[in-house]
């Protein structure tokens, strides 16, 4: 879209240039009947620029432009022409009020400003509603924005047309076209520091103003997509050098300060988190929390409410919020009571099947990395995880076991869970006769009270006979001598059925595989003599006609 619009502009410029050579001749020679609308518009434009008398052509052009609703082509041409007109007028200084002006002139000036505003509103309407023309409209808007910032007021003072940008942003938030948003973010907001700065401000106020908007979810989505595109946090003041509107002269202007930039980003994001109501919205924010959002925050504490609330929600939301909460605890001294309690409750039946599990386990490894944690607590985590691994996919077992190994190395007290000898003869006898009850309380929520430290890891022992050879081998490290200091968890995370299968399939078969030497008489059908050859399970349980 954008290049097309530019094309149009360029073409018309060329035309104008060629026309400029013999404008009068042409006007005379051409009769009004065979003039096409494009030429007419160009003539009008020419007239406006030539003399103030022709200013009345502006409303005419505006009218033509209003025809965009019917999809007429002239409207585009009219819009482009008007844009040129206003830019020229702005550059000429026709919009600047001077004391020397006569009353008549000032009336004209007011009228002109009204027309200008009318033109802008129309453009914005196009931007907000018409998907086809929106990128052209966006280009025009941005050109006007530049001209306005440069020439609308006295040159001495830096002024940024905030209101105009605000309206552009609102229009962008409303439009359904992701494309034009993308164009705006890519070409303007990311490229120019001032645009980004004011975009943040505008989004914030737009979100605040839009609270009672019709389709809040939609606006949220649009705002999120726009904000998440802005991930280039400025590091120092030197980086702030790309300005769309000529830069302010003052050295201590807000635009030149990194902290101000960050602040605006922070405000915008805070405003967005404020309107994130549904689970999905929160998840999408949490997903980019650490990578995109956090860098903008000079005061991450401001996120504490959002994060703790999300963390308390439970489920995958908690998993996502966990890293944020952990950051706050670690860096900002956030006091989160019963953090481990909560963490323990996160280990539910679906954790090992969740797609965020590797992310979670990286964090869990950090949380439980300290050797100063109470052994009972660590034992609870170990026991809980080994319980869960009984129903886990191989890719999860693959990292649970090395993790347990590492924990056992860190907390040698916990090795009682894999090796417990009873010296007392009476207890020994009791065990001989009655076996042992598992003292572990799976439903206890307090990790200090589960009694896991008195239990044994029978589950891991069972996994030593896992069907997948590699998993079984990994599970056997628990019963081998602990000679290795620790396992690097990164080697074991990020596996899945697909990767395991791929690993198997990429191996070439060079040696002939062993073939079962006995060819069974029957595979699908029952044997003729069931007493001599018992049927296989398959035949017993499945009906083959």
């Amino acid at each position, binding site marked *: 879209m954008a290049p097309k619009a530019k094309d149009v502009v360029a073409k018309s410029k060329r035309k104008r240039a060629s026309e400029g050579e013999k404008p009068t001749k042409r006007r005379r020679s051409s009769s009004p009947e065979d003039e096409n609308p494009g030429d007419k518009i160009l003539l009008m434009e020419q007239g406006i620029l030539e003399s103030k008398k022709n200013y009345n052509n502006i409303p005419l052009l505006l009218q033509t432009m209003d025809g965009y609703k019917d999809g007429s082509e002239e409207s585009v041409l009219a819009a482009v022409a008007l844009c040129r007109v206003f830019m020229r007028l702005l550059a000429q200084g026709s919009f600047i009020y001077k004391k020397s002006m006569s009353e008549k002139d000032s009336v004209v000036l007011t009228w002109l400003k009204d027309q200008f505003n009318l033109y802008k509103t129309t453009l914005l309407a196009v931007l907000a509603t018409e998907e086809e023309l929106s990128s052209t409209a966006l280009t025009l808007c941005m050109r006007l924005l530049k001209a306005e910032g440069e020439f609308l007021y006295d040159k001495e003072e830096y002024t940024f047309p905030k209101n105009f940008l605000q309206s552009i942003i609102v229009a962008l938030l409303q439009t359904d076209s992701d494309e034009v948003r993308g164009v705006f973010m890519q070409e303007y907001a990311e490229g120019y520091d001032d645009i980004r700065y004011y975009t943040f401000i505008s989004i914030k106020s737009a979100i605040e103003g839009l609270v009672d908007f019709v389709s809040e979810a939609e606006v949220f989505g649009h705002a999120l997509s726009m904000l998440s595109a802005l991930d280039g946090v400025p590091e120092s003041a030197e980086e702030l050098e790309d300005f769309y509107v000529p830069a302010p002269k003052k050295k201590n202007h807000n635009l030149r300060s990194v902290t101000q930039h960050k602040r605006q980003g922070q405000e915008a994001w805070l405003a967005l988190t404020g309107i994130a109501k549904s689970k999905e919205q929160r998840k999408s924010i949490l997903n980019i929390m650490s990578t995109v959002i956090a860098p903008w925050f000079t005061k991450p504490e401001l996120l504490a409410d959002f994060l703790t609330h999300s963390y308390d929600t439970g489920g995958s939301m908690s998993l996502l919020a966990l890293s944020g909460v952990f950051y706050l605890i670690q860096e900002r001294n956030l006091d989160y009571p019963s953090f481990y309690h909560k963490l323990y409750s996160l280990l539910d*039946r*679906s954790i090992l*099947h969740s797609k965020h599990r590797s992310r979670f386990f990286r964090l869990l490894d950090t949380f439980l990395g300290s050797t100063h944690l109470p052994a009972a607590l660590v034992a609870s985590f170990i026991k809980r995880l080994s*319980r869960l691994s*009984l*129903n886990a*996919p191989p890719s999860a077992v693959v990292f649970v076991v090395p993790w347990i190994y590492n924990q056992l190395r860190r907390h040698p007290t916990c*090795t009682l*869970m*894999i*090796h*417990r*000898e*009873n010296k007392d003869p009476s207890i020994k006898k009791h*065990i001989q006769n009655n*076996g*042992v009850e*598992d003292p572990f309380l799976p439903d206890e929520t307090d990790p200090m009270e589960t009694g896991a430290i008195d239990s044994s*890891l*029978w589950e891991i*022992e*069972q996994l030593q*006979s*896992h*069907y*997948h*050879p590699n998993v079984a*081998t990994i599970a056997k490290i628990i*019963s081998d*001598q602990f*000679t290795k200091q620790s396992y690097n968890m990164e080697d074991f995370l990020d596996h899945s*059925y*697909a990767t395991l*299968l791929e690993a198997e*399939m990429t191996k070439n*078969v060079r*040696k*002939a*595989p*062993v*073939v*079962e*030497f*006995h*060819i*069974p*008489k*029957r*595979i*699908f*059908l029952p044997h003729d003599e069931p007493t*001599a*050859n*018992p049927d296989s*399970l*398959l035949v017993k*349980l*499945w009906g*083959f*006609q």
Partner: protein
Amino acid sequence: MAGSQLKRLKATLKEQGIVGPQQSKKQKRKAAQDDRARSEKRLQRGVVLEGIREQFNPFDLKHAKNPKFEVTTNRPVTAAYKIKGRPGAAKAASEERRRQTLLVDMQRRHKVGGILDRRFGENDPTMAPEEKMLERFAREKLKTHKKTSMFDLEDDDDDAFPGEGLTHGGKALTFDDMEVVDDYEEDDLDDGASDVSEREMQRLKRVRAMAAEGDMDQDDQPERKKSKKEVMEEVIAKSKMHRYERQAAKEVDEDLRAELDKELQGIQHLLTQSSSRKTEEKPQPSAIAGVERSVFDKDFDLQVKKLAQDKRAKPSDRTKTEEEKAEDESNRLKELEEKRQKRMRGESVSDSDEEDEDEEVGSEGSQAGDDSEEDFGLGRGINAKPTAAELGFDDEDDFIIDDDLVASGSDIDSDEELDLGSDMAAEEDESEEEEEEDEFTKGLLNEEETRNPVFSLDSTTKSADVEKGDENGLPYTFPCPQSVEEFQSVTASYPRTSLPTIVQRIRALYHPKLDSKNKERLGKFSAVLVAFISSPWDPETSPPFSVLENLTRHIHSLAKSFPLEIAQGFRTQIEEISNERPLAIQPGDLILLTAVGTIFPTSDHFHQVVTPAMLVIARYLGQQVPQDLADHAIGSYLSILTLQYQKLAKRYVPEVLNFALNTLCALAPTSPSASIGSFPRHDSPVSHRAKGASQVSVRKLGFSDCLHTDSSPPEVKIAILNTVSQISDAAADTWSSKGAFIETFGQVLEVIKHLNAKACRSHLPSELRDRTEKLQVKLERMIKISGLSRRPLELHHHKPLAIKTYVPKFEETFDPDKHYDPDRERAELAKLKKEHKRERKGAMRELRKDANFMARENLRIKKAKDEAYEKKYKRLVAEIQSEEGREANAYEREKAARKRSRNR
């Protein structure tokens, strides 16, 4: 020693007796006469002089540095402190070498072409003309010896000495007098078989020895001089004679052999009589004596070949009793079972073992008496079973029987257990693998050969008339399909039930014994069969299961000869499943996975085909959230298959229980509470709860239930519930000995309890209710027993690890030259590094010396050039000067003369 160097030298010389007091004339004469003593003395003198020279030039030798104080070192003082090198000699040698190689290269640089000097001895003044001749002779010989044959007397002359016959004492050599036997006899003996070059060398040695002798003679008796040439001729003549003799001896041998040949018939007769076997061909008593030689030779060759091909006479084995046979059989099975156990534990079977095993698998699979697979689980039941012959079957024989049955028009499903099978099996019990293969082919062919001659011909040369077919209209010959499409098009026109017959015939037609290319063809064909059985299943068009079963068994039988091709075929199919439809397994894939389970040993710790197959199954069971009843049915099938896979190894498969519990929960008439079990719960988007199905009859699931349809009839739900509870039952049996049985099956018990709760009971048929109640009781009992037998884990009965010691290890007899690195690899690496460094230094030194040498040479050349130039310049200047001087003189003279004349 005191005094100057000169004085010392004199003293030493005197001491050694090299210079002494002047001898009288008498003494001198005496010494001169005593020739032997003189030469000895001269020798000794040389040695002594050498010693003195060395002694007086200390820089000729390089000595190792002595230790400063003996006590400070424990290095052995031997050898190492002796002479380390001779720098002078070494330098001279290297210089000489360079002059021979580098200098030549230098001089030849930038030069193209040239003449290669192959002359020898031209520049060697030490070479006597005789030696030169000898050398020339040797070279000539070397050049030609390859061309001439050993016994070629005639053209030898032309080749070795063209245009010149061998002479002896001026006369040409003739070999008429054969009785001359000279002293070469002992050489003759061992020369007979040796090759030419060796002989050549020996002869040369002899020649040299003789030449040396000649020298001696020369010294001793100078008057009887024999020219070198004569000696040479003699030598050559002798060698020729020697050769001729050998030829004669060979001819004698030939005669002897011919004589023996004549008597062969008699010997043969004796041989045939002694062996118990009867040879078919009749002896030809009168043929030999009278027949033409060529005919006789041909006959003889034929006979020899036949003899070689005949089975060697062996003492026949005693017929074994039934008990012995059974024992053998049980031993064999035990061995196989041991190997299987080893693989199951994941222990590496050594390569030779593996091969052995493969071979055994190949050979013994076709032997008689395979007990059913279940016996291995029990392990000890083999001896109690009936004997091999009663039970046993040759698997491959099965197909022969099949073929027979089908060919005679009977039903494929009819009873296969004919006595014929066991008879044949018993016969083949003892045979070797190769013979077994032979038998198999023969069996196949004999069956059909009687009816159709095409099998004896090459399979590619088929005529149309043999394709008329048997009584079912099935032709005897088929092309060997190399792709699935081809196979389908080949078999399209025949009924599905005849597929096994077609496969059987293709296997017979393209048996690897018949054509060398058949092996490849059949390998491809087996992969095609694998693809065929896994092709999409359709209740209407797909072959019935009896046929699929038969095809699977054909693949199994082919897998013994083509394990790689078939494994590759299976793996491609599995890869296709995992890439294209990991969560949408089709019924055709189920057949494939079943075939994997029967063809390959599923109990192995790792197996190239089974492990991926198992992963595919587990992935489906673990990740597929069932959308409709078909998904449940497929999952149930896969669960059964998994349990069957793990029948022997009893490995734990979490996905099976997850699936079973989820299915039970999803299909239970009422929804269970949220906190039931700790398995991940799937929430099925559509509810398939079996409600109000108390009147539905329970049936087995079938393949048609695996096809996705919109309807969800209650009997399918009940069938799934029934099957899954049976699966849980079987799973409990399989994993009853696992450590965490209580935790694992506690969840199952909870779910089953939920099914037995009042809310659910009323909806389910009574048969299912009975089953679940029984299962509940069983699980409760098993969990109780498991609880009783549970002990705290004691996994770490390892020897406690020693604390690391930091006390250095002392060597009793430490040798600083030796390296005591305990890490072998590191030590070797260090050694290699050292060697590399040394080599590098050596190479660099050599290069440096080369460069020096070249610079020196260049300088020398330049100097020589400059000198020549200078000389020439001086000569020219002198010439000019002298000329000018003469002219000047002449001028002076002239001038003086004129002056004189003027004055006159």
